């Protein structure tokens, strides 16, 4: 059961995706913008806009599956560029996520020590 807000956001999201299918936006109808020029200059990073729109929807669903609030997921995907979307679409599961540091390390070190003591590989004295 989706809320009305989420539906409205999703509709907006699809509109933006579809608008991006055209080559041009901004100043005039037929003006070429700088992001497109960068994409044309950098042929290796060329991602078709159609591919990207499909990938955006995949990434949005994946974010929701990873526990992101559905409304936030829409906005988060809109903040990504085409090549970032392509990267997430292919590697989201593998990418490292910066979380904590300190205390997990402590837990691991303690666990390892406990195991070593328990198995008799390490002894006091």
């Amino acid at each position, binding site marked *: 059961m989706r809320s009305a807000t989420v539906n409205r956001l999703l509709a907006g999201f699809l509109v933006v995706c579809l608008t991006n299918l055209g*080559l*041009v936006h*901004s*100043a*005039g*109808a*037929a*003006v*070429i*913008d*700088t*992001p*497109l*020029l*960068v994409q*044309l*200059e*950098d042929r290796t990073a060329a991602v078709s806009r159609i591919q990207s729109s499909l990938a955006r929807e995949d990434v949005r669903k994946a*974010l929701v*599956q*990873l*526990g*992101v*609030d559905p409304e*936030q997921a829409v*906005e*988060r995907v*809109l*903040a*990504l*560029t*085409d090549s*970032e979307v392509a*990267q*997430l679409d292919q590697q989201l599961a593998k*990418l*490292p*996520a*910066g*979380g*904590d*540091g*300190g205390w*997990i*390390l402590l837990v*691991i070190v303690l666990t390892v020590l406990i195991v070593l003591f328990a198995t008799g590989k390490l002894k006091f*004295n």
Partner: protein
Amino acid sequence: MRRGAAAIWALIWLLASCANRGPVLSDDQFEPDAPASVDLSGVPFFPQETFQCGPAALATALSYSGLEVTPQELTPRVYLPAKSGSLQVEMVAAARRYDRIPYVIPAALPALLAELDSGRPVVVFQNLGLADLPLWHFAVVVGYARPEDALLLRSGRDERETMSAYNFVRTWEGGQRWGLVILRPGELPAADDPDGYLRAVAAKESVSGPATLLEAYRAAALRWPDNLVARFGYAHALQASGDLRAAVEQYRALLVQHPDQIAALNNLADALSRQGCRSEALSTVDRGLAAARDPLRPVLEQTRQEILAAPADRSEPAVCAR
């Protein structure tokens, strides 16, 4: 007894290896006029809550750039509950939603140190664990001390962590030497990196439009006048802001250096047409069409149609003359 001996040997080995290596922050890592130490003491500190080092680090850098941002505000924008952490890509994307340009520095220690010299803290990605058992962590580097061969960080719950440069580099290399800097519009990175900077600006433009980026492109065009994207970006930002006269001037300057730049010919033709320069606009777009490759050809054809649909030659104003 045996353990005691082992401990002593370990200590000796440690001391010996410390003595053998030179400083990590050696002179060749710095600009010639860099100071002995930098401490950006004005950088705020947000003690991280469990797993929230991403939001905390990003809020630190955004706040120092003059915005009022809290980690709590960023958590729903970067945090992935199922991964108990945040992705680098989303850290960049979240920063893009503010009036700032998130810029990933070249992956090298001199680039990081140069940013600190320029007074900007650097959000870094570290592996605090092992290669096979990684513990990914975001922190903010706020300074260095060459005499101690150490870096200063806001990290986790530590407001002022001093980390030996050797340990820092080891953990930073684990994170592929990733460093993020928050630039205000018009502010340029310390490194001479036009491609990386312009990619960052264009990425922001692709999600938030060119409106606030005029200063960012202007600064780039001044610093790298021979760079095609810098010049084009400045001209296009002028055009998008409605300053057609200045845009025409910039496109013409660009076309002197890159005579067959199709996108520039197309946009110049559009700007000319909107200023009532119909015949000049037509000859410009035809020059582009003569050279146009596939992906842009339909755009130029559309521009030509629009020029033809515009009112026929008024007396052409002075701006049309080359």
